[in-house]
C-alpha cells in the first residue's frame, strides 16, 4: 500500500505547469486534491513517473460571479465551495451537492477540478455539472479553449482533455428564471459512493408549462447518463404526478445502463433510479413553482 516512486514537481505558476505537462506528456499526472489519485497510487493501480502538484498555485482557488452564474478556479476545494455564499446564491444546486460528497476529511482536501478531471461516473459533481451545462476552461501551451460538459466526459474515468491540457476553470451558467433543481441519491452509509443518484432541473413558464427538463444519473453507466427521452415527455406539458411517474419509468427502464457489483444489482439500481427520479422531479417542480 505504498505508491511507486515518482518525480515530484511543485510549480508556482500555470505556465510552469504547462511547460511540465508539455515536457512529460503521458508520463505526468496532475496532483490536485489527490483524494482519488493517491488511493489509486497507493494500490499501484496507477504509477505515474511524474507528479505535477498544483496545490501551490493560489490563483486557481477563486470563486466569482459572471453573468449571474459562477466561475470556480479548478483548485477550489469542496469545503470552500460548500461554505461560499456566492455559490449558495448563484449555483444553489452546487451548494446543495457539496455536503453529499464524501466525508469532511475528503472535502477539506478534494478539489472541484480534480473531481471533474477524474471523471468518475459515481461522482456527484460529474452529473451535476452535466445537468447544469457547465463549461470547462482548458489551457495548454498553445492557448485556451472552452469545452461543454456534454463533450468533456467521454467514458469511464476519461475526458476529452489531452496530456498537455490543464483544467483551470469551471463555469456554471445561471438557470433560467422559473427553474427548480434537485439532487437525490442513495448510499449504503452517508458519504459512501452512491449506488444510484440523479440530478434534475426543471424550468416552467408563467403558465407552469415545462419548457426545459434535464435528468442526469450517476452510477448508471460509463459516464454521466442523461435521459433525454424522459425529459422530452415533460417538456411542453403541465407537470402532473402521472407524468412524473411515466418519465421516471421511461428513464429507469430504457435510458440508464447501470451495472451489477457487490454493492447492488443492476435491477436494484434501476428500481432506485425510478424512485429517485420521482423524488427529484417532485422537489424540482416545487422549487420551480416557488421561484415564480
Amino acid at each position, binding site marked *: 500500500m*505504498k505508491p511507486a*516512486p515518482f518525480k*515530484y514537481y511543485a510549480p508556482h505558476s500555470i505556465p510552469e505547469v504547462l511547460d511540465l505537462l508539455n515536457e512529460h506528456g503521458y508520463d505526468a499526472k496532475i*496532483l490536485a486534491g*489527490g483524494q482519488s489519485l*493517491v488511493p489509486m497510487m*497507493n494500490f499501484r493501480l496507477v504509477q505515474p513517473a511524474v507528479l505535477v502538484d498544483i496545490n501551490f498555485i493560489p490563483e486557481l482557488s477563486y470563486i466569482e460571479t459572471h453573468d449571474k452564474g459562477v466561475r470556480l478556479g479548478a483548485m477550489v476545494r469542496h469545503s470552500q465551495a460548500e461554505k461560499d455564499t456566492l455559490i449558495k446564491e448563484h449555483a444553489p444546486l452546487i451548494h446543495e451537492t457539496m455536503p453529499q460528497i464524501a466525508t*469532511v476529511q475528503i472535502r*477539506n*482536501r478534494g478539489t472541484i477540478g480534480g473531481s471533474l478531471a477524474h471523471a468518475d461516473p459515481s461522482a456527484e459533481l460529474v452529473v451535476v455539472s452535466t445537468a447544469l451545462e457547465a463549461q470547462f476552461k482548458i489551457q495548454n501551451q498553445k492557448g485556451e479553449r472552452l469545452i461543454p460538459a456534454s463533450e468533456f466526459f467521454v467514458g469511464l474515468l476519461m475526458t476529452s482533455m489531452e496530456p498537455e491540457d490543464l483544467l483551470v476553470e469551471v463555469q456554471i451558467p445561471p438557470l433560467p428564471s422559473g427553474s427548480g433543481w434537485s439532487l437525490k441519491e442513495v448510499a449504503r452509509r452517508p458519504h459512501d459512493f452512491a449506488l444510484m443518484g440523479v440530478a434534475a432541473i426543471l424550468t416552467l413558464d408563467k403558465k407552469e408549462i415545462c419548457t426545459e427538463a434535464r435528468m442526469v444519473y450517476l452510477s448508471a453507466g460509463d459516464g454521466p447518463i442523461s435521459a433525454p427521452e424522459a425529459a422530452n415527455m415533460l417538456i411542453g406539458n403541465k407537470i402532473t404526478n402521472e407524468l412524473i411517474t411515466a418519465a421516471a419509468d421511461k428513464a429507469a427502464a430504457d435510458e440508464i445502463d447501470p451495472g451489477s457489483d457487490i454493492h447492488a444489482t443492476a435491477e436494484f439500481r434501476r428500481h432506485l433510479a425510478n424512485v429517485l427520479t420521482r423524488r427529484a422531479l417532485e422537489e424540482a417542480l416545487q422549487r420551480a413553482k416557488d421561484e415564480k
Partner: protein
Amino acid sequence: MDNTYELNVTVNGTSYQETVDPRTLLSDFLRDGLGLTGTHVGCEHGVCGACTVLLNGEPVRSCLIFAPQVQGQEIMTVEGLGTVDDMHPLQEAFREAHALQCGFCTPGILTTLLPWLEENPNPTEDEIREAISGNLCRCTGYQHIIDAVKLAAEQMN
C-alpha cells in the same frame, strides 16, 4: 531515482526540516520520520479515517497526502491535543465515557472532532453521528463514542 525533497513543516508547534522521498505519505512521515506514532494507519486509501490529522486546522486524511505537499504548513496530530498528565477535555470525556476499547480509531476521531466541536458546541446525536461518519471504529460500536462527544460538549461549554 535520485529524488529527495527538503521539507520544512510545523508539527504540533515545532518546526522540522527533514529530507524525504516525495512518495512518502504524510502518515508515514509523521510516524517514521518524526516518531509521532499517535497517528494510526489503517486502510491507506482514505476510507477508515484512522490517520486523520489537522492540516492548517482542518481535518484531512494523512494517508492521501504526500509529505512534500505540506511544505511550509502546519500540522497537528493527536500528540498536540494533550498529554497523559494534562489531557484535553475531549480526551478526558473519551476516558470518562469508555469511548475506546482498542484505541486504534481514537486519534482520528479526536482530530476530526476538535475543530468540529468548536463550530458545533451543542450537537445533537444525529449531528455527532454525521460528524464521525468518516471514521471507522471496529470495537465499541459508536454508542460510547457518541456519549463521550456529548459529555465533551457539555464540559467544554
